[in-house]
């Protein structure tokens, strides 16, 4: 077992870099637009932004095959987009439209796209971990070499079911990658007030699986850890635990007054923003020209514009269908 605290060294450039930049940019622009739309009350309910953490979703997801599965949390826009769920379907969902990826039944916290194997939005902290274990169990019993990645936060590690799930996956040697997004806060509770052992990879290792931490603000490090973790799981060697050390630039949700941290702390982390960092590096290396970067930005803007237009044009489920999808018996023939 690798020592829990071992951090993957920052790896060099790869051919994936431009793709990573695009994914991160899409997530960033998409969510910036979400903020406007929330203020305009086009989006309602709880909405949790991923801004600042894009390197994690982009990097880890880059290691996945289309038939690999992702289980996520309520802070999942980034994971959904990185897994290929169309921005338009995500936006329409937040508008509560039939065209949304969950037909408007789920909203921001409950994005699903079975075709892309995105078993997304679980809003019970740590509630998704056993589901990921079960998806992997199904693959392993069927002899399929698919991998399931489960994203969860630092706070989730305090929940008992997290430990039950880690143990189960390790005991049964299941192909699960436990991707712990340590953004240092669980709502307003700082890491050191949630955990006596703040080195979260130690908790993963204690369940009997390889566990390591990596710099979640460095998308190349995330991609590297993702490749390593997914390869390990796919090899049949069982699960592994990756702690991705990152930071949430925005409030926990749209209701959070952020009384628990200083502006200075946020500013400091913003200086480590993975987007400009990668863009600058690719320009410096000449991998991309200024035009390329500008075009990429314009592409993404267009994609987000289209998503919003699609959502605006979306339709509402008839109230008569309120109790549809309570029983799968209705589905027989229905869809």
């Amino acid at each position: 077992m690798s020592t829990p605290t071992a951090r993957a060294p920052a790896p060099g450039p790869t051919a994936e870099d431009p793709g990573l930049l695009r994914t991160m940019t899409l997530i960033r622009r998409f969510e910036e637009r979400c903020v406007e739309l929330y203020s305009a009350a086009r989006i309602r309910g709880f909405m949790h932004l991923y801004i600042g953490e894009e390197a994690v979703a982009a990097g880890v997801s880059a290691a996945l095959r289309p038939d690999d599965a992702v289980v996520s949390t309520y802070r999942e826009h980034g994971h959904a987009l990185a897994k290929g769920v169309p921005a338009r379907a995500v936006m329409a969902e937040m508008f509560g439209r039939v065209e949304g990826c969950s037909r408007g039944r789920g909203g921001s916290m409950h994005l699903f796209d079975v075709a892309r194997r995105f078993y997304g939005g679980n809003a019970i902290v740590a509630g998704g971990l056993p589901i990921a274990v079960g998806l992997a169990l199904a693959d392993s019993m069927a002899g399929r070499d698919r991998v399931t990645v489960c994203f969860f936060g630092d706070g989730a590690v305090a929940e008992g079911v997290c430990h039950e799930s880690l143990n189960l996956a390790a005991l049964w040697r299941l192909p699960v990658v436990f991707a712990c997004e340590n953004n240092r806060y669980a709502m307003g509770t700082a890491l050191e007030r949630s955990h006596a052992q703040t080195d979260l990879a130690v908790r993963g290792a204690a369940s009997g699986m390889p566990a390591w931490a990596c710099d979640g603000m460095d998308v190349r490090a995330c991609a590297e850890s993702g490749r390593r973790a997914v390869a390990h799981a796919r090899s049949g060697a069982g699960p592994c635990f990756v702690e991705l050390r990152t930071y949430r630039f925005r409030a926990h949700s749209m209701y959070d007054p952020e009384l628990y941290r200083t502006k200075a702390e946020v500013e400091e982390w913003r200086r480590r923003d993975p987007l400009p960092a990668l863009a600058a590096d690719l320009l410096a290396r000449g991998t991309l020209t200024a035009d390329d970067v500008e075009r990429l930005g314009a592409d993404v803007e267009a994609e987000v514009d289209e998503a919003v237009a699609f959502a605006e044009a979306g339709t509402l489920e008839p109230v008569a269908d309120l109790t549809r999808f309570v029983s799968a018996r209705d589905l027989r023939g229905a869809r």
Partner: protein
Amino acid sequence: MTAATPAGTTFREAFREGVRDALLRDPRAFVVGEDVGRYGGCFGVTRGLLEEFGPERVRDAPLSEAAFTGAGIGAALGGLHPIVEIMTVNFALLALDQLVNNAATLLHMSGGQLPVPLVVRMTTGAGRQLAAQHSHSFEGWFAHVPGLRVVAPGTIDDARWMLWAALQDPDPVVIAENGALYPMTAPLDASLDGVELDHAAVRRPGSDVSLVTYGGSLPKVLEAADVLAAEGVDAEVLDLRVLRPLDDAALLATVARTHRVVVVDEAWRSGSLAAEVCARLMEQAFYELDAPVVRVCSAEVPMPYAQHLEQAALPQVESIVRAVRELVTRRG
């Protein structure tokens, strides 16, 4: 299909045959739970199945009710037909979040993308001096949750066949097995090759009063009906079988025949399934009733260990008979 002689099948054997049958006929089915394998099942239901089907399909789980139930949900999403065994409904509280917030909601939250063909078996009920943490009857709580189907076998044939029907159901199904039934014996109907999970069943036709019950209380109620028959009271016994969704038509039909109803439910009275039956009759059969519906439930006390106190806390043949006597003699 069952090895046991029709005359002498125990409910335990019938449940085992149901599980065995599922593993034989459905390659996607597997059993997971605490001590279902090497130990043979805490109540012996799965004994011998590990040897027959191996550790992959009869899977011993660590003490982690939330995780292995949630894993069952995930496995169902992944195309398998998990049969999760939770030793008792008391411990199922540890898995309730997974059952309520995931199993029951995923289909709806995903706009119809995620059916959860999961079966969860659990033992319920009291009567064995297991005291306050091992004697609950929470099946009524599951019956409150949209997205779940809840069934409670009270006959040997339902014990034998409900699991197969549950496996065919596209929704998560909770099977509440009352522990007092396991050692009881009854003849299996050899001609039967299945049951449905939609309707209540009249176990004894009658004209004077309807006794509505389910699960572990059914044998007591049938015995009470015999006692009453000897006294000239002709009681109809309706076995709910399916606790969610309730079979309203069957409830209305029986009250239309007898106009008097006693509901027998081993759960604590307040907030019991019996309350919901009263409410349905209030809403849909008020003008059919010659007298108010009567509930015979457990006393509202954490189950005491001492035998005389536990027996006093539970519905008994005598208390059922007494309640019916009072009801039928009451002027409409």
